[in-house]
């Protein structure tokens, strides 16, 4: 009897387990989490120097990830600092490239589940390397997998991801540092504050710069009413970067000055710019002026019209009195 009960219990467990497994969700929600660190790295090298750099790729998924490690040059393509990896060497501007200086022991590998892989690269700086900046991206690209089609009429899109670390290399020497403010704009007239300021700084040097500057809003009496630091953003050589700031509060009135002062580069070269603008809440001002005018007119009306009417009434009253007196006299005469 005990054996039968045990068999029935075991069978029940197996059935329950089967249903639990078969009803488990599919891998539709499966994700591929990848981490790279450092996300950016800055190196300083001398011509002829041999050095290395290690980038860590962390696979946070529950499955091992196989893929390629690549070293490619990159440039910045716009004034937002967006890096673009150069896919082919022909596209590269040799002035800022250095991927050919890099080597590694392997170019593909498998990162175990929940593990990191440290990708070590060696850098051999040519003896004739010119001073300035070089920019390289080191990335890991897992190999995409497409299942074989079940029929000959299927469609599929393979998805691959690349996660890149950016390497900034400074080759020591006589580095050209030059930058200018190409745009320092605030609308000539604003109805209300805050004052919107657009600043664009162009790096004309051959190494990236990170300008340290502040914006100052000065009121018509020469008093500083607001200060803001420009976000310290990197500017790629021969590229510009745009900064947008808002200074002051809503209620401003008069002619204001916006001043930019700062420095860039290792020599702390100066940056400065000025712009003047008017802020005047004209709609509110018109409403206030109209209200004042109406008030003045009303007061004036009351002040001028009331005595006149009073005078007229008194005259009328006097006339009526006289008329009554005259009528009284007529009645008395008749009697």
């Amino acid at each position, binding site marked *: 009897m005990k054996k039968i009960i045990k068999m029935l219990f075991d069978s029940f467990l197996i059935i329950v387990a089967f249903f639990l497994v078969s009803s488990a969700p599919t891998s539709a929600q499966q994700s591929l*989490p990848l981490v790279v660190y450092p996300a950016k790295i800055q190196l300083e090298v001398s011509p002829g120097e041999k050095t290395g750099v290690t980038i860590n790729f962390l696979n946070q998924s529950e499955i091992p990830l196989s893929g390629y490690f690549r070293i490619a040059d990159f440039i910045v393509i716009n004034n937002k600092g967006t890096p*673009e990896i150069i896919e082919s060497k022909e596209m590269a501007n040799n002035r800022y490239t250095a991927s050919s200086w890099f080597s590694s022991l392997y170019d593909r590998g498998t990162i175990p589940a929940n593990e990191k892989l440290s990708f070590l690269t060696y850098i051999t700086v040519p003896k004739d390397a010119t001073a300035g900046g070089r920019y390289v991206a080191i990335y890991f690209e897992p190999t995409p*997998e497409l299942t074989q089609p079940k029929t000959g009429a*299927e469609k599929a899109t*393979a998805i691959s991801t*690349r996660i890149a670390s950016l390497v900034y290399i400074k080759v020591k020497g006589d580095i050209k540092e030059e930058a200018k403010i190409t745009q320092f704009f605030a609308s000539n007239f604003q109805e209300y504050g805050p004052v919107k300021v657009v600043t664009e700084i162009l790096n004309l040097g051959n190494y990236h710069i990170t300008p340290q500057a502040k914006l100052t809003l000065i009121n018509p009496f020469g008093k500083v009413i607001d200060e803001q630091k420009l976000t310290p953003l990197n500017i790629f050589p021969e590229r510009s970067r745009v900064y947008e700031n808002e200074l002051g509060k809503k209620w401003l009135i008069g002619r204001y000055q916006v001043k930019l002062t700062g420095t860039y580069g290792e020599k702390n070269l100066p940056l400065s710019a000025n712009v003047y603008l008017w802020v005047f809440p004209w709609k509110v001002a018109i409403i206030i002026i109209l209200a004042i005018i109406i008030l003045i007119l009303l007061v004036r009306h009351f002040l001028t019209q009331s005595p006149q009417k009073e005078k007229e009434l008194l005259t009328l009253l006097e006339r009526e009195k006289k008329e009554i007196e005259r009528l009284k006299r007529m009645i008395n005469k008749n009697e």
Partner: protein
Amino acid sequence: MFIIMMKKIFYQLTFIFFLFFQSFYLFFLRLPQIFTVEGATLLNASDTLSNSRLSYRAGVATGAANGSVVTIDSSGNADNNTNHLFPNDNVCFAGPNLDGCYQQTNYTVASIINTTTFNISPPLASTPLGVNDYVIASQSAIHSIQFTLINTIPANGNILITIPAIDITGQTNDCFPDTNSTIASNGFDLCGLGTTNIAISSSGCNNNWTVAAVTAGDATNDHTIRIDRNTNSCAAGSTITVTVGDTNRRLINPAPITSSHAQGVADIYTINVRTRDGGNNTLDQANIRTAVIEGVLVSANIEETLSLTIAGESAGIAACGQTTDVTTYPYAVPWGTIANFGAFQEASQLITVSTNAVSGYTVRIDENDQMGRNGNVCTGANAGEAQNCIRDTTCNTSCSESTSDDWTSTTSYGFGYSLQNVSGSDAIFLYNESSRTFSARQIPDLEAGETAQTIMSRNTPAASSQVRVCYRLNISTTQPAGYYFNKVRFTASATF
């Protein structure tokens, strides 16, 4: 016999008188004096320092003109290594007579290179440092001295606080941290602290106090602070708090003593506090031990990291205002066999990005080619059915990899995508922008020479920004049958 008796009585009386006078002297003259001078011990006496770090004082070995590297002597000074000098400390290079700072400037420690060398910012001026100069990083503290009275302080009484000073005249009040061979001969520098820099409060009696005098110490005397009681007495049991120093003036903590000081072991100084009556007789007193010790630099290096997660999503979910038809995976969007021509097929993936990079991040998208039959190359941007390709959509009217357009017409065929913010607002364009139903773009075709386009970005750190990428495929009835595929790629990096 009589004479012997008298002698005995005389000796006994002499002895009794001796004992009597001794006892009289002890009990009626000596003991009251002792009790009056020593008084009782103040209760719960303590001195809390706002900064208990020892000052730093080392000898300069080298400091070149216009240089930013300074090397210190490795022996013979209060500090003989850089163990107790930290990045961002303010340092003054003082001459051998401690008569001011080099160039009247304070420098910031930029970094510690090794046990005897450190970097400063800004660099030195055109004069090098002298070999007899000192590197000084002063540490100052506000002392909060608290105690509870055993005896009442009368209306004309006072409090006297004695703070140890260095036993060298001329160095007790020069605003440079002091050092000597022993703790007993060293002390706190007064640094011009005066009566206005001292505050007193009392709990248990009226706060009727006047800081009457601050006297700087010299070779033989320590610093003293006298606080007079006014108007009425302060009762026993009252708790007094004396705050020595304020935002303007503070006592300078001593540097380590020059002999027998072990780094990490405090130098303990004694501050005496006593309450006195109108005749300056001590009522209560306490010796408070005050410890100053080297600081501990706690540091951690946090790497800039970038995290990218791409997740597949199930069929049947709401994505970009549509309901998806296809279950996707991180690696693939398997459209499967399509027999429903002229009808939109929807699929989606979820992209999550986190980074602590101050400049933020960008995620860009591209495809190796348009979808080609059996991997057929679709040459150019407009390769279509005739070339056995599913071309990138042109939306209702016209869209490209950089400009979007509404895509609602099922007679517009091809492959395209749209975006939806799930967490944050990092998507570059949105499916419902400009009141559209499904605002779409082409995926940049590398084969056709198009460049990758940003789909999500941020110029500040991102905790967990999420954007849904919604793919759409619409096949015409005349599309040649076959297995079509291409490869879409996402590239994530920090913003420059």
